[in-house]
């Protein structure tokens, strides 16, 4: 008690002392208003050079025709006209990208939500399983792509080996990556392999923050597992799910790595996505202005999703 009073008195005295010292130095406004921004300045400068200025240049380049050398020629909206109305290659890439987004907004979420709710129910070894399922997420994408190229290879893949062992599963030996009908889904499958375990970890953490009393109440009411999941778990983790849903949409509009390593957009154009197309245009065919226009379109698509979800939430939608 006495100690408490002493501490309070000390703190009051200390605060007064600091304020007096600041006034004396005239440092109050400096320490509060200027110094913090000096601390923030170096990293902001890096952002300015690497992100902000190039992004503004990108806006300008998208209105030009430019092979990367010489002067960019201003052409107004012509790049976008070509992009939206004439370029069939772009349209295909766009359609593939829509399928790709649809995949990443369903499959990983179904897998990770079911796995997380299964892990959340077990006490023993829950953290052990979490660690195991998280391992693929820390592997480099180039290695993940290689492993699955090997596993799906018609000669040394899993299907071929199981057949050699006398367990011939008809579809498993199919050259999924080489077939225009299946290649896009095969690449999506590979990209999902490290991803869903990461999502599961996020959802598991959110689930473990739900009060156990709610589950007890559900049990007393005689809820079965599905009802429990639907009425207790899902509402509890909704903010996390919604946030990851939004981020997944943004990221899957800008996917590049897995497609590039596994198929480079082929066979034919069957796995071409918006960004692999952008890469080819800008860095292979040196249509810098056109590439910038694709980049802007991709950003606009992702940005629309963010704005839309913010607006809906402002208007009171429960998402």
């Amino acid at each position, binding site marked *: 008690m006495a100690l408490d009073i002493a501490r309070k008195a000390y*703190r009051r005295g200390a605060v007064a002392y*600091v304020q007096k*010292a600041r006034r004396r130095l005239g440092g109050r406004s400096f320490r*509060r208003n200027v*110094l*913090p921004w*000096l*601390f923030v300045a*170096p*990293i902001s400068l*890096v*952002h300015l*050079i*690497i*992100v902000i200025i*190039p*992004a503004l240049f990108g806006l300008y*380049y998208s209105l030009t025709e430019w092979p990367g050398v010489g002067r960019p020629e201003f052409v107004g909206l012509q790049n976008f006209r070509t992009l939206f109305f004439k370029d069939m290659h772009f349209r295909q890439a766009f359609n593939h990208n829509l399928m790709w987004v649809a995949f990443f907004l369903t499959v990983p979420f179904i897998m990770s939500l079911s*796995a997380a709710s*299964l*892990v959340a129910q*077990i006490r023993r070894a829950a953290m052990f*399983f979490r*660690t*195991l*399922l998280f*391992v*693929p997420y*820390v*592997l*480099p*994408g180039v*290695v993940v792509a*290689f*492993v*699955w*190229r*090997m*596993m799906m290879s018609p000669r040394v893949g899993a299907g071929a080996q*199981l057949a050699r062992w006398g367990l011939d599963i008809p579809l498993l030996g199919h050259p999924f990556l080489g077939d225009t009908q299946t290649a896009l889904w095969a690449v999506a499958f590979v990209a999902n*392999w490290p991803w869903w*375990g*990461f999502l599961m*970890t996020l959802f598991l*953490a959110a689930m473990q923050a739900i009060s*156990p009393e709610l589950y*007890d109440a559900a049990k007393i009411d005689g809820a079965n597992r599905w009802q429990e999941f639907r009425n207790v778990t899902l509402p509890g983790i909704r903010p996390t799910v919604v946030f990851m849903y939004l*981020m997944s949409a*943004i990221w899957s*509009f*800008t996917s*590049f790595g897995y497609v590039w*390593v596994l198929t480079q957009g082929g066979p034919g154009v069957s796995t071409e996505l918006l*960004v692999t197309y952008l890469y080819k245009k*800008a860095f292979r065919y040196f249509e*810098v202005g056109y590439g*910038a226009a694709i980049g802007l379109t*991709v950003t606009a698509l*992702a940005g629309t999703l*963010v704005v839309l979800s913010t607006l809906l939430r402002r208007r009171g939608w429960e998402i």
Partner: protein
Amino acid sequence: MSEMLRLFRGGRRASLVPNYTVMVLLALFSLGPVCVLAFNSLKSNLEIGDNSLGPPTELHLENFFNAWVQGAFGTTVRNSLFLVVTTVALVLLLGGIAAYALARLKPPGADAYMVYMVALSTVPVWLYLVPLFVILKRIGLIDSLWGLLLLYVALESPFSIFLLRSFMLEVPSDFEDAARVDGASEWQVLIRVMLPIVWPGFLTVGLVVALSVWNEFQIAYVFIHSPELQPVATSYYSFQRRFYTDWALTSAAAMMMITPVICFFLALQRRFIEGLAQGGLKG
């Protein structure tokens, strides 16, 4: 209380056998391919030809030696280590002081700046990659590890500032006030008071940044062209295209890349998972 209730009614609870079954199958799905990779890195290509999933019958350790030489791992590992160390150091230094200013000095406009950070981290790289390439080319930072370093610092820092700031917000302000009363400058408060308390947060962020730089492939692929400047992941991309069906050699090269990652992860998994999960913002 609820825990006791749960134990008390334990007998009535639904069986957990299906849970364990599914978890074991999913763990096989996650780790099986990694095991296959490890097995194949020890086989000869001949053996992979008729046993591509099972454990090796004899050990071909020379795969690792050959892969190390063919992939010029001596050079690429050095490049990657340089990038990892410098990126982590710069992100922790520049991001750390920015986070300190935003969390503890709370200047007017700090909240707006955090919103700007979120926006920055969601802008797709592909919006500015092409013009950035043009700009860096003009100032001679294409095909240069310093240019790549600058890019990594820019890309890794928004998430790092976020995380470091959230760690610093949890520290009670008494300690700092005491130091300020004693006439410490803000810099001294940061180094002498803040850092000794929040260093675990710095470690977490450092690990996450190190992991993502070590694994990074696509930006280095765009900006680095000379083989002798490539980091491991980018060099591995060309390696696996050059030895397209040399499964043993390519598996061995992959194992050399992922073994340190997996060891670090298993040793410090709590930190990794905490950092990566809170950095859910980052791609």
